[in-house]
């Protein structure tokens, strides 16, 4: 085969759903392209950075892969990526874009096809302005991505932040925070609570009968989560670079074939995995990986039709793309998102300024 890919992701335990979706999207694209010149080795990182480092070592030292991809979480990416790209391997990020790797720590072999972490938060801030919310209550877990998230929101939000609350990572009960939201009398509550935390919060928020509207980044309203939240999320606005109903030809085909292959609606993660594979395939058409410089140029060109429409790389090899506002609706008995409109167009991150590529 011409190209060997090491796919490492969280495939067991908590958070496995995201990794599984990325993998399924990725393999779907390869399958559709009939790419038998690409060999993929898949391994589980159990959501543990130490294990991921180990797996990466194995991919590089034993499997001698050319490209690594698959990681879901920022902290794992931070553990794996720097040393992998320093050893001359390519890394394509199908999810997670920590600021460190977009700014000073950017690298010529690191490509992000998803987003820089702040993108959705920034878009949410912009959306809050557009919607005319003059005061906001903002909340996130107390960890770096949470802190970055709120910073991102505040970067674009022009109204008043009445209260900024940090919850515990993995917290399950939000009664105290909900009481604070109710008492804050803000125009809007912005929250970033990925995974199960978001599910718990949304259910409890709906049950508490608070009438302050919510907005959030797409993570908390993803297809992996919505079925479990149900009508508690109905009508909530959220921001994402992709949506299943996004009106592009490539997307319609992708959603259909994903449904056919896996019998479920794809998530944002699946779409990103799909795009990561497409990026690789597009580069292979013009260059061989044995010529690293040429291959890098081919990647940079990003000559593929992204499921999210227009897509290109900024100088720091992170996306320049549109971020949309979506709304949660029930469609054909499935809770999902529909695009309401764009929030930010041709958006790229602020960290690129520190990157000297």
């Amino acid at each position: 085969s011409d190209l060997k890919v090491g796919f490492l992701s969280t495939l067991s335990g908590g958070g496995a759903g995201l990794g599984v979706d990325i993998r399924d999207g990725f393999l779907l694209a390869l399958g559709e392209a009939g790419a038998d010149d690409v060999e993929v080795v898949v391994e589980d990182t159990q959501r543990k950075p130490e294990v991921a480092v180990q797996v990466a070592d194995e991919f590089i030292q034993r499997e001698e892969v050319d490209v690594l991809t698959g990681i879901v979480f920022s902290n794992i990416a931070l553990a794996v990526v720097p040393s992998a790209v320093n050893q001359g391997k390519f890394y394509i990020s199908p999810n997670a874009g920590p600021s460190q790797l977009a700014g000073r720590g950017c690298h010529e072999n690191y490509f992000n096809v998803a987003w820089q972490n702040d993108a959705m938060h920034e878009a949410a801030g912009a959306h809050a302005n557009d919607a005319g919310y003059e005061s906001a209550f903002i909340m996130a877990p107390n960890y770096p991505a949470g802190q970055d998230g709120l910073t991102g929101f505040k970067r674009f939000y022009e109204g008043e932040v009445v209260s900024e609350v940090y919850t515990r990572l993995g917290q399950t009960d939000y009664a105290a925070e909900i009481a604070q939201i109710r008492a804050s009398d803000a125009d809007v509550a912005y929250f970033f609570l990925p995974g199960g935390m978001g599910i718990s919060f949304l259910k409890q928020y709906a049950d508490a009968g608070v009438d302050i509207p919510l907005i959030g980044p797409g993570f908390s309203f993803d297809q992996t989560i919505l079925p479990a939240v149900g009508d508690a999320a109905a009508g909530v606005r959220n921001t994402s670079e992709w949506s299943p109903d996004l009106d592009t030809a490539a997307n319609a085909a992708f959603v259909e074939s994903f449904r056919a292959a896996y019998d479920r609606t794809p998530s944002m993660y699946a779409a990103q995995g799909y795009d990561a594979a497409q990026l690789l395939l597009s580069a292979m058409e013009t260059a061989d990986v044995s010529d690293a410089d040429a291959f890098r140029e081919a990647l940079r060109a990003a000559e593929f039709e992204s499921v999210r429409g227009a897509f290109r790389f900024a100088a720091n090899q992170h996306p320049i793309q549109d971020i949309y506002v979506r709304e949660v609706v029930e469609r054909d008995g499935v809770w999902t998102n529909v695009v309401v409109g764009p929030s930010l167009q041709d958006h790229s991150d602020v960290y690129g300024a520190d990157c000297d590529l």
Partner: protein
Amino acid sequence: MTTILFIEQVLNGLQFGVMLFLMAAGLTLVFGVMGLINLAHGALYMVGAFAAASVAAATGSFLLGLIASLAAAAMAGAIVEIVVIRRLYRRDHLDQVLATFALILIFSEGTRWLFGSFPLYLDIPEALSGPVTLPGGIDYPLYRLFIIAVGLAVAGFLFWLIARTRLGIRIRAGEADREMIAALGVDISKLYTLVFALGAALAGMAGALVGAIQSVEVGMGEPVLILAFVTIIIGGIGSIKGAFVGALLVGLIDTLGRTLLPIAFGTVMEASAATTVGSALASMLIYILMAGVLIARPQGLFGAAA
């Protein structure tokens, strides 16, 4: 912070405490009565939640889901007891810890294999959803009041069972000396299976009840487990009363710490830093409480001295 908000937060703290107790009740029972440290309690909690979610989804009835959670968890508990735990009573805590640690892995991955990697949907029944207005003008979710009621009932039931019934006495006697209670004509194996299944059923029920306002997903039981341990350490070993008071204390301190500490820090430092530092400290508050209890009363607030 207004007085009314403060009162509401105290209420939230108590509510969280009762919920903690509900989640820990089965653990406390099995631990206090059988001296068995069951790390897989969280897994049984998860089993209950998944059973409830899938049955509720299939039948549309929360009640049927709740019953299913009891049944599924009790059955899982009984099987686990007969196949695994039974062989471990004579062994030290170490073996129990490991075997139940192994069970966590098996249950988690087994559930993921059966139900997939995505969270399931489980919602509050119609009749219990939405807020009610309490005296003083506090809007409070009815379902949470319901959970408080169930928690209190469970606490009362357990206390009665263990302290007042012949069954409870015999189980405790068996804990002290299994061989001797058998020599007095009590079939302790059967009793233990029963207790373990009961503990599991309580875990399952808690999983279903709490699952309706939380995320029903693989691994949902783990945070519960650690909190329950802290609760038991504070309250005292083998004491239902201790576990109950411990749970209330943990709930109260955690909730109030979470809301008050950032405010307190805000008076001395810049707002954004205050929230991060305050929240970080708040997340350790219950451990600090635990350390304090260990220093002052190593056997816990209500534990009998060794």
